[in-house]
């Protein structure tokens, strides 16, 4: 959007773009009708900026790596498994965990809109909601994954999961080799957002350990 086209000067010297004005107008009328509360909106913003995010999913994955019983429960019913752990935030129904292995790579998309497991990953990145990703990951996953720097071995099976209903998918990446002696909380730091969407993998090197 070109700034010069959309900014308008106001008497108080502030400038608002057209879209900012529309959002403000929407908020104003809803507040004045008593249908929304500004303090609630602020809390929602705070929640998505600071409380929920990939760190939640990363802790789930790290626990699955170190605790076989939890992993078994997670793959059976991820919602129940997570909600039975007292130190994880509550997640919604029909969260489904899908596990990567030496022979299988899973990757998740929502071709029709932007369905994404908010309660374990936070809000989706712009690329996840964009036309390039949504159009091609289903028809040409290997080349799209290369754009993320991920080269899958020839012959590895690739499953592309399209979130077309009120189910949500969380990829459980493979635990990196050489991490046997690392604690659960340190392991969680190796689990990236992209590795839980399937556009990346969790990785580990001696240097990353040194740097915490």
């Amino acid at each position, binding site marked *: 959007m070109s700034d010069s086209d959309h900014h308008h000067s106001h008497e108080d010297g502030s400038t608002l773009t057209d879209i900012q004005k529309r959002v403000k107008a929407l908020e104003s009328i809803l507040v004045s009708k008593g249908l929304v509360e500004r303090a*609630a909106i602020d809390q929602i913003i705070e929640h998505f900026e600071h409380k929920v995010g990939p760190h939640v999913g990363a802790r789930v994955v790290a626990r699955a790596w170190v605790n076989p019983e939890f992993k078994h429960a997670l793959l059976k019913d991820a919602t129940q498994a997570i909600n039975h752990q007292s130190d994880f935030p509550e997640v919604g129904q029909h969260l489904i965990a899908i596990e990567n292995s030496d022979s299988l790579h899973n990757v998740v998309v929502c*071709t*029709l809109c932007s369905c994404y497991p908010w309660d374990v990953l936070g809000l989706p990145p712009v690329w996840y909601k964009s036309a390039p990703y949504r159009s091609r990951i289903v028809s040409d*996953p290997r080349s799209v994954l290369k754009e993320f720097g991920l080269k899958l071995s020839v012959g590895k099976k690739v499953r592309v999961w399209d979130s077309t209903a009120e189910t949500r998918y969380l990829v459980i990446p493979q635990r990196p080799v050489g991490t046997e002696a690392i604690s659960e909380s340190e392991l969680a730091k190796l689990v990236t957002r992209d590795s839980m969407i399937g556009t990346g993998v969790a990785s580990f090197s001696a240097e990353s350990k040194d740097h915490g």
Partner: protein
Amino acid sequence: MDSIHDLGGMDGFGPVRPEHDEPVFHEKWEGSVLGLQRSILYLGLWNIDVFRHAQERIRPNEYLSWSYYERWTHTLIATALERGLFSDEEFRSGIADAVSSSAPLVPLTSRDTDKAFVRGNFEREGMGEPRFCVGDMVITKELRITGHTRLPRYARDKIGTIIAIRGRHVFPDAVVSHGKEDPQWLYTVEFEGSEIWGEAVDSTVSNLIDAFEPYLLRPEYD
């Protein structure tokens, strides 16, 4: 409806460009839009399917040129006007009419925003058994629906295999077409990549969708 939102399998949009260290919101107003969307859905006048269908009705050229939260802004305003949450005049003036036609609604307040953070459950109890079992071969319908559907174009009229039954879920097509939940069995269906993309895709790729029972036929019977 078969519009631009149904992007799976299209070409020409260029490479995916991930942004390094992407912020949660790029501009402050985007957060407000998200807060407004959660607050409006909380009122319970319409559900997420209605919101999605309103996005699908954005003109294709605008759908592609607007940012994500610009689309949301447009959709929230259009749906609120369409469903009478406020009038054109109220929106323009920013002043609520003294006599409001809308029934009393309970707004989301800062005391109970936690309720708005846990995803709603779309599974519904009910009578009847699922028509298909895990392992069954199914063929997806060649749908032409002008309303809302969650069967993407690329997965229509294709043979796949049921790999999971997810329960009976609110049927998005019915929610939008006649305001009823009309719960239907939901299945995860796996298709060989070659069934959908022909020789364009190598044999290691498969595509999976979550499909409602009315989208599915039994090849040998239907």
